[in-house]
């Protein structure tokens, strides 16, 4: 079996300066996509949720290499920003970003995913250094983020702690879950402007186009009606993502309101036969598909 693990011109992951410049971010996105295909190929089950991972690559590259204040050497650093992947099935995308950021050796991507008791499970859980909360039963991540945002604000107000940002990435699909809206209501009620939710709006649920499965529109207006400050962005446009996430985290952007960033993305982005296809929510690649996908992302 082929396996491209060149690791990008011999750069050690932890040597990448943060915040990364645009060229580095572009280069990283290519590394992420290639590693995602390899991870999937070498996962214990031969699979991952590849479609919704590829759609997230630019969002996670900007979060982990530009927006989030993290210390990979000290994943429990109390003053860190909190990152929650509420769409926990896309864990591999987060693992790839974390490996490149230096949370654990990049080798783990290829020897630990979906292996019994290894640190990288198909759904996010506490065994991964730097993971904040288990997710994957959809709709739970934002609630945990609301709790963290409330807790962080309490620490700031009553104990003088420095403010931090709480970032949660949701799928469009999990916005059909009731708990997502319980969380949305609570975040606005408590005025948590330290909370940023990013919806990976790849416009596909498992079985088809999002609005054909369950109409979410008017999507941004729903969140706005719940009291959120809504921003929209092309989720594959790196400079736009940098701007929108910096805007979202600034308190003065919309005092007292939690922020929602709708990132318009393409499920399976970067692999033409996966883009917008319903077959790649979770999938196994044949040898041929793997080679074809690799040829596209390693271009």
């Amino acid at each position, binding site marked *: 079996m082929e396996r491209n693990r060149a690791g990008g011109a011999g750069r050690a992951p932890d040597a990448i300066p943060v915040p990364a410049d645009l060229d580095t971010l572009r280069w990283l996105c290519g590394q992420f996509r290639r590693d995602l295909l390899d991870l999937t190929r070498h996962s214990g089950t031969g699979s991952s949720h590849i479609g919704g991972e590829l759609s997230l690559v630019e969002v996670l590259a900007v979060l982990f290499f530009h927006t989030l204040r993290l210390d990979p050497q000290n994943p429990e650093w109390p003053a860190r920003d909190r990152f929650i992947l509420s769409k926990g099935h896309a864990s591999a995308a987060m693992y790839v970003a974390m490996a490149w950021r230096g949370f654990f050796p990049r080798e783990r991507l290829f020897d630990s995913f979906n292996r019994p008791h290894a640190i990288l499970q198909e759904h996010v859980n506490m065994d991964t250094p730097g993971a904040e909360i288990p997710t994957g039963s959809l709709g739970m991540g934002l609630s945990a983020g609301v*709790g963290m945002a409330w807790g*962080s604000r309490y620490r700031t107000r009553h104990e003088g702690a420095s403010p931090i940002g709480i970032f949660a990435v949701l799928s469009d699909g999990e916005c059909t879950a009731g708990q997502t809206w*319980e969380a949305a209501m609570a975040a606005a009620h408590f005025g948590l402007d330290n909370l940023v939710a990013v919806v990976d709006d790849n416009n596909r649920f498992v079985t088809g186009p999002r609005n054909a499965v369950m109409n979410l529109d008017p999507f941004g207006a729903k969140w706005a009606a719940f009291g959120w400050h809504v921003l929209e962005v092309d989720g594959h446009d790196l400079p736009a993502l940098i701007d929108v996430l910096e805007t979202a985290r600034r308190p003065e952007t919309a005092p007292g309101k939690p922020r929602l960033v709708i990132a318009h993305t393409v499920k399976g982005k970067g692999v033409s036969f996966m883009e917008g296809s319903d077959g790649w929510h979770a999938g196994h690649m044949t040898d041929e598909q793997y080679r074809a996908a690799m040829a596209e992302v390693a271009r």
Partner: protein
Amino acid sequence: MSTANLAMYGVSQGNIRQLFGEALVAVGRANPNVVVLDCQTAMPTAASLFAKALPERFIDLGIAEQNAVSFAAGLARMGFVPIVPLFACFSARRALDQVTIQVAYAGLNVKVCGLYAGLTSPNTGATHQMISDLAVMRSIPNLTVVEPADAMEMAQALPAVVAHRGPVYFRLVRGDIGGPVPRVSPGGYEFHLGRATLLREGRDVTLIGSGLMVSRCLQAAEILAAEGVEADVINISTIKPLDADLIVARARRAGAVVTAENHTVLGGLGGAVAEALGDACPVPLRRVGIRDEFGTSGPLEELFPRYGLTAEAVCEAARAALEAKK
């Protein structure tokens, strides 16, 4: 009940509902990281006392138990010790996915409470009578399950589970109806997480109760004594981890066992004891509890005999177990 004993734990004399609220305030005053989350049941749970005493650490989330439990998990990740005193039907059923994944699987320091447990939500009927929470909660890895039997034990158990680092399910009856919860703990009693208490020693049969059924077991032991049958009575206040050592030791000695719980006979205390005995000491066992059926609305004094949660039901089970031992 001794006022002095309760005062030691920061609570006064009164019904167990009031005492639970006072115990919440006491642990909140003792630990600045304690936060209480509510879903519109603060009056019946008496979490309202905490809301009044420590309003900046009281969070009302409306009728959103799933959000509340996940929110609590997020707070635990920020170093808080969240206590979530909900009705058992909502914490152990509505929010079960969240308790399982974001509290127990995550190993987070959240104290999920199930109040009005078993039949002690009498007027509300089957929708609110949580009769399977012990079975569900004790089958979840990582989760400690506690059900105190009286006010004195509750007042010690709450600080103990708050001091214990890890996820806990804390079960409690509705305590302001059907008369006060009788005291079963002896003078000088000290609660220890994971340790059962032998309240009475006998040689013929071992009665093992949890929660409100402990007092029924003590009454049953009196009735049985008049018949010439000497019964052990054990209070299992920690359902998980189960004090199997004490259970097996007493079962070996007596050779017959009865369990009694305010819960279905499937999978709860009776199930836990059956598993422990099956592993180490198979002896005749009879289980007292609700017989695989839903509850109904009605006054407690009618519900208890209807569903067999009485001292007489424990006596009958003991006689049957003794017969089987012959």
